[in-house]
């Protein structure tokens, strides 16, 4: 992993606001994630945690505030005291370094597991096919699916699909990985295999922002835990402490239901 010696944060969100029509989904989010840190975001549904995650790689644009990843402003360029919207191609370039894993996997159904992983390196980075195939094979091995190269997504279980999706994101060698409820669409017995892969990533020093309902994972793997409700960060801190004795009553109410 690329260490940055300036000590600048990997993700720096300041005063993020976001509305869909008249509904204000994010009401001023401040969050800093350091390189190598695993940050878990929890909270009731509709609290804006997925929207916030999607703002980090500009899948959603923000209405006010600033989003910075590895020192680079996301979605805009500042010149003097003016902000300029980035072109689509420039946003695409920023996204190369930010991997994302979706709740519903979103694998490309017309491509095999290995083709799913090779797609972005081949079309975006123009890596040659042979080399891309080799590293894709390595990534599939890493997520424990070395024998599933030529299976189409429809021939894989949910857990296997999600592991391919993680490998696909890793193929672009991202500096940051975003996980949007990666285990919420899985059968209970398949959750473990996906969490194992994520645990491995964390151990290797990957910076991760994980929106999740897996409190066990948060407690065990995360370096920091953020509790969101109604578009605000209600409480944040070391996972063990937040989970064991939450300070805020809304956190207490939420945790009493899920733990």
């Amino acid at each position, binding site marked *: 992993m690329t260490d940055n010696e300036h000590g600048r944060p990997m993700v720096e969100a300041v005063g993020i606001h976001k509305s869909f029509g008249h509904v204000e989904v994010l009401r001023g989010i401040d969050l800093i994630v350091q390189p190598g840190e695993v940050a878990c975001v929890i909270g009731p549904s509709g609290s804006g945690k997925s929207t916030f995650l999607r703002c980090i*790689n500009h*899948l959603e644009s923000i209405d006010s505030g600033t989003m910075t990843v590895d020192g680079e402003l996301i979605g805009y360029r500042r010149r003097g005291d003016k902000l300029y919207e980035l072109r*689509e*191609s420039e946003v*695409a*370039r920023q*996204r*190369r370094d*930010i*991997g*994302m894993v*979706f709740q*519903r996997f*979103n*694998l*490309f*159904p*017309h*491509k*095999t597991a290995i083709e799913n992983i090779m*797609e*972005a390196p081949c*079309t*975006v980075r123009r890596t040659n096919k042979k080399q891309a195939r080799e590293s894709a094979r390595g990534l599939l091995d890493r997520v424990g699916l070395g024998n599933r190269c030529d299976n*189409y*997504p*429809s021939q894989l279980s949910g857990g296997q699909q999600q592991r391919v*999706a993680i490998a*696909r*994101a890793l193929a*672009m060698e991202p500096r940051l990985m975003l996980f949007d409820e990666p285990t919420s669409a899985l059968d209970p017995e398949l959750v473990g295999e996906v969490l194992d892969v994520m645990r491995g990533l964390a151990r290797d020093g990957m910076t991760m922002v994980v929106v999740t309902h897996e409190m066990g994972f948060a407690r065990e793997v995360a370096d920091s835990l953020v509790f969101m409700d109604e578009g605000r960060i209600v409480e944040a801190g070391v996972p063990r402490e937040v989970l064991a004795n939450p300070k805020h009553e809304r956190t207490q109410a939420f945790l009493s239901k899920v733990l």
Partner: protein
Amino acid sequence: MAAPTDDTTAGGAGPIPGTAPTPIKAVPVRHPGRWIAIVVLAVLGAMLVNTILTNDGFRWDVVGKYLFSGPVLNGLRNTLVLTVLSMLIGIFGGIALAVMRLSPNPVLSYVAGLYIWLFRGTPLIAQLLFWNFLAALYPRLSLGIPFGPEFVSFDTNQLINQFTACLLGLGLNEAAYMAEIVRGGLQSVDHGQTEAAGALGMSRGQTLRRIVLPQAMRVIVPPTGNETISMLKTTSLVVVIGYFELMTSVQRIYSVNFQTIPLLIVAAIWYLALTSVLSIGQGFVERRYGRGVHQGPTGARLLPKRWTAGAK
């Protein structure tokens, strides 16, 4: 219909050695209706064969004489050339129009909408005649700067002969219909696919070419098969601007020798032959784009498995 022996249900629950289950012995449900239907159809079929063979009005000798005659084959060639070329214009034009229609650029979207409205909203015959008589409107066509100098100039009648007028009329009209078919296909692809491609850093163009369009093809191909088969017969409209194809050739022959029925049978045989070839081709294309998806019933189902297995 086949019994429900799905692989997924049969895979895990194999018989355990030693405890083989005893199969159910029961009298199967009788289907008298099927037997009645078979008898009725057999009688009707026999009547049909009988009349085809014994009614001299069919004049099978005349059919045989003209089936491979020069004028008929000439017309057939024109039908094929017009169908293939105007469908190519239609498909590629349709893809371009659909992408424009769905573009975030409001100008492109509006222009595509206008084109579709105009070309779907006016009769094809009128469009064919329009292209043919373009010279009456613009005797010369030129490239240049408006109100400024001209770089090149053409005589319209030389640039647009009957054949080009046919292609323009059929192709540009088809593009409008194909545009809506392609748009439906593109919109049928889950938005998550675009997001996943975007999150990987793929551009809009790459996402369209590599991710969305190949998946949309599954939805686009069947109606496109329809359009192609329909085009095969629509080409006969070119008679209004004095061009000829299969139907026109046949009509010219029977207007002279008055063998109307046999010559219509000649035309029908060729149209059916071409349609059969196209249906088989459609089956192959559907298999190609059905990769990774549960294979539902397609035209290819009508073929023996060994024919289509290679197309996977």
